[in-house]
Every structure is written in structure tokens, then in C-alpha cells.
């Protein structure tokens, strides 16, 4: 018998008892819907974190003082990373730009309005490394860094706190007092709450510190990232007279590594939640097997009749198997639509992008068909093995 006929037969049989068909499908619908929603939301949140990490700059390595083992280690009190280290790193091949950074929390005032913000001393190359976007004005130049200029670039939220809303344009050229010292505002950067000043000014005028809190290194060729990472590591170890890597008084981190960590975390979460959803699929599958067994018993006489008019074991097996697969497949498709709807609502609530990958669609269709074959096999096989005499005599 051809497959199309069998499909029609299966659909006829399932239409015969709509309520039961829907209830039987429910397990698969819930299972598939949750898997799809979880995967979609997982991908959405990964996407949003990836976007954030990428905004830190692509192909950027961050060197922090302090040992890796000390969680959150270092901070502003570890003084092992110096400006000289930065200069040495900048001479390595494949290093495009380097910017040392030192930062402290300071109070800013403008006409009696004051706010507290993280003030960061950076080099002129910082604007390139971090791909900063400007709402207004420009970044300070290398010359200004060299001459301890008292200039500052403010994040838009800081400007808002000090000058009020939508003050980005007239803020440029105005002055702001940091620790009682007057700074000229050069520019306003978007989506930021930081205050950037030349590193020399931070070192000599504001903080009075000569060590770095971190070092940002932009790599020229991203394919050689790990090689460059090793070069920087060995260079700094040599400079700091440390032989054992585990004793290093600094740590290196690439944006790639951060992405990996994020992917690993969301991956684990998605796997775990999908596992729970898979249990629901399993329960749904057992439900289908149960109902199919009842159906086989109910239709014993019909099976006897079919065998009497020439149905072979294979014909009966295929008919019932296709019935189970149609049942789960339709359930899977309903679940897919439902899951996408849930994911859409969820992504709006969580503020993450709505992502549905083709692979999750294939997964839904594939898994639901798989469940049909797996759990439909036993009842179908049982039906096909009925002896025609016993089946015809069954009351």
C-alpha cells in the first residue's frame, strides 16, 4: 500500500475521535513547546550577552594585575602592572594598540549639581580599542595625554545627572570639577556612565598612582589571538621575573574567552532545562503508547477483518505506526507554534532578541516523529501479530 493512502487512513482514524486525539497529543505538544521556548530564549539571551561583549571591542585582550586564583583579585591596590609594561606590550608584533587604564570613583560637580562616577585615566588609543560612539564632541588627543591636560570625556548618563536631560550638545566646552579641579569637557559618549580623562592627568593630578588597574590590548590579526596572548604572557612574566606561570601576578582575558564562558553558561542552562522538557516528551510518548494500545484492543475486529481480506503483517504494522507518527507529528507542529509564541512573549518580557533557529524547527519535527516511531512501535507490532481468527472472534 502506498504511503499516501496510509496517511489518509491514519488521519481518518484520528479524526474519528478528535477529543481523544487532542488529549493524547497534549504530552507531545507541551514537551515540544517547552523545548522550543527554552532553546529560543537561551539563544536570545546568549545573543544579547554576545552583543554586549562585542561592544567591549573585538579582538581585545585585557590584562589585569593580581593572580588569577584570587577571585575578583587585584582591584586598585595591586601595583604590579605598570605603564612600562604597557609600552613593552605595545612593541610586540600583531599588537595594534595598547591603552593602560587606572580608575577610581570620584565626585563630579557642576554649578552645585554633583554626582559620583567612575573616573578612568586612559590613553588616546582607548577610543579605537573600545570603538566608542560619540553623541557630541571628540576624544582627547595624544598631545593632550602627553601634556597632563585637564580635559574629560563624559558618558551620557553622567552628563544627564549633571546638566539635565538632552544636554549632550551644550555640555561640550563646559567645565566640570573633579575632586575640586576644573576639567574642560571634550565630548560625550553614548550609553556610558564613565568619565574618561588622559592617563597622565589621572596619574599626576587626580590619583597620584603610578601603576595600572588594567591594560587593554588590541590585536591586529584576530586569528593569531591565542599566539599573541602567549607572547604577552611570557613577556610580562619575564619583565616581572616570574618563572612559574601559576605564580603570575597578572591575568589575561580575551573577549573571545568571555564569549566562551557566556556560551558555556547558557549552554549548560539550556541543556538542563531541555532535559526537563525531554522528560515531558517521554511522559507524552508513554501516553501515546498507552492510547495506541487501547486503540489496538478496540479495533481488534477491524484488524481481523483487514487480515481476512489480505492485509499482511507489514501492512498492519505500517498503518498503526503511521497513525502514531501522524499523531505525534501534528502534536509537534502545534507545540512548535505554541513554543515560538511563548518564546516571543518571553523575549519581550526579558528584553532579549527573539531568535528561532532552523535547527530548532528540525529538532521539533524530528523529535516528535521519533517519539511516534519509538512509542508507536510496540502497539503497532502487537496489532500486526494478532492472529486473524482470534481477532475476528474477539467481542
Amino acid at each position, binding site marked *: *500500500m502506498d504511503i499516501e493512502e496510509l496517511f489518509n487512513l491514519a488521519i*481518518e482514524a484520528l479524526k474519528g475521535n478528535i477529543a481523544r486525539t487532542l488529549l493524547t497529543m497534549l504530552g507531545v505538544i507541551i514537551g515540544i513547546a517547552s523545548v522550543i521556548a527554552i532553546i529560543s530564549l537561551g539563544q536570545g539571551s546568549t545573543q544579547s550577552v554576545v552583543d554586549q561583549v562585542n561592544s567591549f571591542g573585538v579582538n581585545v585582550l585585557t590584562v589585569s594585575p593580581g593572580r588569577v586564583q584570587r577571585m575578583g583579585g587585584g582591584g586598585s591596590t595591586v601595583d604590579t602592572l605598570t605603564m612600562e609594561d604597557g609600552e613593552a606590550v605595545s612593541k610586540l608584533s600583531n599588537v595594534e594598540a595598547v591603552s593602560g587604564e587606572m580608575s577610581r570613583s570620584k565626585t563630579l560637580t557642576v554649578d552645585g549639581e554633583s554626582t559620583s562616577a567612575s573616573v578612568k585615566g586612559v590613553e588616546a588609543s582607548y577610543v579605537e580599542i573600545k570603538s566608542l560612539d560619540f553623541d557630541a564632541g571628540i576624544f582627547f588627543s595624544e598631545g593632550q595625554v602627553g601634556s597632563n591636560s585637564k580635559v574629560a570625556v563624559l558618558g551620557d548618563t553622567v552628563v544627564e545627572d549633571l546638566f539635565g536631560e538632552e544636554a549632550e550638545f551644550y555640555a561640550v566646552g563646559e567645565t566640570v570639577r573633579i575632586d575640586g579641579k576644573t576639567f574642560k569637557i571634550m565630548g560625550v559618549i553614548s550609553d556610558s556612565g564613565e568619565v574618561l580623562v588622559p592617563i597622565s592627568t589621572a596619574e599626576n593630578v587626580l590619583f597620584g598612582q603610578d601603576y595600572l588597574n588594567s591594560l587593554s590590548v588590541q590585536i591586529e590579526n584576530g586569528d593569531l589571538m591565542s599566539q599573541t596572548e602567549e607572547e604577552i604572557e611570557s613577556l610580562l612574566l619575564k619583565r616581572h621575573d616570574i618563572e612559574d606561570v601559576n605564580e603570575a601576578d597578572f591575568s589575561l582575558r580575551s573577549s573571545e574567552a568571555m564569549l566562551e564562558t557566556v556560551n558555556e553558561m547558557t549552554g549548560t542552562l539550556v541543556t538542563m532545562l531541555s532535559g526537563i522538557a525531554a522528560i515531558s516528551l517521554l511522559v507524552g510518548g508513554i501516553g501515546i503508547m498507552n492510547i495506541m494500545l487501547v486503540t489496538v484492543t478496540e479495533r481488534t475486529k477491524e484488524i481481523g*477483518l483487514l*487480515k*481476512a*481480506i*489480505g492485509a499482511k*503483517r507489514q501492512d498492519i504494522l505500517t498503518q498503526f505506526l503511521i497513525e502514531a507518527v501522524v499523531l505525534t507529528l501534528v502534536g509537534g507542529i502545534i507545540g512548535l507554534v505554541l513554543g515560538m509564541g511563548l518564546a516571543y512573549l518571553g523575549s519581550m518580557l526579558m528584553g532579549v532578541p527573539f531568535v528561532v533557529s532552523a535547527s530548532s524547527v528540525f529538532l521539533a519535527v524530528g523529535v516528535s516523529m521519533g517519539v511516534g516511531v519509538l512509542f508507536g512501535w510496540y502497539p503497532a507490532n502487537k496489532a500486526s501479530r494478532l492472529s*486473524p481468527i482470534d481477532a475476528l472472534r474477539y467481542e
Partner: protein
Amino acid sequence: MNKKETVIQFEDIRKTYITGPVKYEALKGINFKIKKGEMVAIMGPSGSGKSTIMNIVGALDVPSSGKYLLKGKDIAHYGEDELAEVRNKEIGFIFQSYNLLPRTTVLKNVERPMMYSGVKADERKKRAMKSLSEVDVDDKAENLSNHLSGGQIQRVAIARALVMEPAILLADEPTGNLDTKTAKEVMEFFIKLNKEKGSTVVVITHDVEIAEFAERIIYIRDGLIEKDEINNRKRK
């Protein structure tokens, strides 16, 4: 009549059922021949073994020993799938009840045996309609089978049995669920098919009145043939 070819030949057919320690011999050596174009009734009370004969004749079951030649071929040792093919091509079943698939149209019911032997859709429909018109129910082709009267159901069953042009029409208590008038009509259909088309008809029944529609009656009792005689009473 003796010149005609033999369709069914039973040679010392025995059937023993074993359930645990209990052995039950349902058939104790049955011999008969049925020739092409005959209309035979196999009659006996319940427990006589006539249902076992019907199962073996219909290739639903195989005997424990003996030879069953269907159109010259011994099918007594056939496997499950071979028997299914024999049923499909050579046997046209008409049962007492549950003849048709529920929730399915008359046409699809009649087409079903052809689906198992791989006949193409358009030819299936053509043959099914022809078969239905032979039993005068072609106007019900698109009706659901559960919307038919008892007499109509038996006629559709006959149409389905005819559609594969089988070696025999095998009717198991075909009138068991019908009133006397409809039962007579159905039996007259068998006679008509037997006379006009030359169909070989085997009717299994416990009812003397039904058996007497046949031209030959084989009486079964306790697993043996009691009498095998030409029906001398007036055939209606």
C-alpha cells in the same frame, strides 16, 4: 459437473487444539472436493467443527495434518504472509457481522483488498464501482458504511468479495443477523451469482433453511462428515 476443475480439495484434514494439558481434536479426518461453479453449504451444530473447516478453507488457519489443495496447490504448510496473499487473491469473505470498516465509505471498503495487492487508484475505483453495481448498491458508494441497512451491508460485503475475482466466495453465517425476508434476498443473490457468473460459493451455516439454498450440503458432526449429499429439495 464432474468434468469441471476442482477448486477445493480436503485430504484427511485434521486439526487438534492444545491448551496446556488438554488436547481437543476439532477435525478428525475430513475429505471432500468442491468443483468450480458449485454452491455448497457446510452445515452442522455449534461445536461440530464447521468453523474450523471455514478457517482452513479460508486460509485463516492451517490444519494440523492433511492436505488442502486450493486450485491444485497445497497451502496446508503456507506461512503467514503467503496465507494473507491467498486470502487476498483467492478467497472472498462474507462474515456474519463486522463485515465493513466503520467510518469509511462503501467505495473505500470495496477498494481495500485491491489496495493490499497494489492495484492503482483509478483502476481500483473503476473495479469497485463495477462490483457494487453487480449487487445493486452502486448508488450508496459514497455513503459511510455505518449508515447502511443490514441487507445493504451484506451486499457491499459481497461486492468486496467479488472485486478480486476470487476462486471461492466464502460466506460464514451470512444471514445470521438478518430478518427472514432480507436473509432470503441475500441468499438469492448468492444463487444468482452462482448461476449467472459461475461463482463457486461455500456457505457455512447451522441453519437448515439457509443450507437448503445450496445445491449440495455437507453435514458435519463431531469433527467428521456425517453426510455429503445433493440437495434434492426444491431449490428456491
